[in-house]
């Protein structure tokens, strides 16, 4: 007898509980998947930002480094926004620290703030610090619900 409370007794005669749709293929593009792609994309772009050559001091706002940084922040913002829209119900105050989605949301938001702070502070010498905080936080956010 199933552990889930059943309205109808199932499988007492050995009926299969296997999936009815053997041809099922997980869709590539859903709201959940877009949220995932935004988060992973922002982390990948933040990593690339750290790797690519830095712009010259004469013209710090042009080149691939600031472009990638801006893109990382945009994708991070999109990840936070889509998470709030599609996964708001997964956040809860009950047992706050034990809910992985609470940590996922907090660290994801912190990650995006880190990206934004790095861009706002650039080309000041401290902006890599904010970028690192952002990327590490985003990595932790992803890992927690991976």
């Amino acid at each position, binding site marked *: 007898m*199933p*552990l889930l409370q059943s309205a109808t007794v199932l499988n007492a005669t050995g009926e299969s*509980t296997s999936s009815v749709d053997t041809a099922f293929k997980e869709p590539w593009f859903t709201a959940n998947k877009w949220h995932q792609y935004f988060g992973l994309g922002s982390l990948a772009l933040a990593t690339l930002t750290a790797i690519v050559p830095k712009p010259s001091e004469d013209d710090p706002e042009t080149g691939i480094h600031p472009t990638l940084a801006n893109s990382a922040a945009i994708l991070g913002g999109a990840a936070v926004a889509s998470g709030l829209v599609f996964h708001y119900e997964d956040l809860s105050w009950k*047992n706050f620290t034990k*809910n*992985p989605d609470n940590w996922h949301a907090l660290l994801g938001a912190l990650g995006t703030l880190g990206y934004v702070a790095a861009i706002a502070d650039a080309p000041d010498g401290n902006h890599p610090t904010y970028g690192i905080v952002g990327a590490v936080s985003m990595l932790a956010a992803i890992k927690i619900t991976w």
Partner: protein
Amino acid sequence: MNKINQISSLVICTVLMTPYSYASDGFFDWMSSTKRMKGIEAIDDKVYNEECGACHFAYQPGLLPQASWKKLIDPKALEDHFGDNAELDAETHKHIETILLDKAADKSHYKRSRKIMASLDKDSAPLRISEIPYIIEKHDELSSKHIKDNPQVKSLSACAKCHQNAEQGEFDEDNVRIPGFKQWDD
């Protein structure tokens, strides 16, 4: 100065993670693993799947806390397992009990097991998965037409009828197909 700032940033991140690490045993093993652990840990054990799956969906141990499984796997309790006799021989009983207790929700780092535990009160030991607040909440938009009155589903207990990858421990909304209905999207 930059280096100091960067190191202090890493320290801040670590501190932020600390409450989470305190909330779980084996945190660093989990942290260093690249394995996908979003659902419930699947059980790749022939005996478990054959014995439990003979009568119903072989519910993964990560769906209930250890205290619940202790009650359910008790030999006396198995004599009346929700109305059926589910007694096991000693060897099989020991084998299944070990899996249930080792991989129970409160021993698991899988996300949905954590969610289940976060939704339960301390020392709570529900005997039915359908009594878990997290499970109730996740199914609260469904009506009888989706399950009870749906001839292809009939019961909430038939996880794999709608969760297409349930046997792999994946219960994502993206994998839900309710027979007779279009793609589920809440």
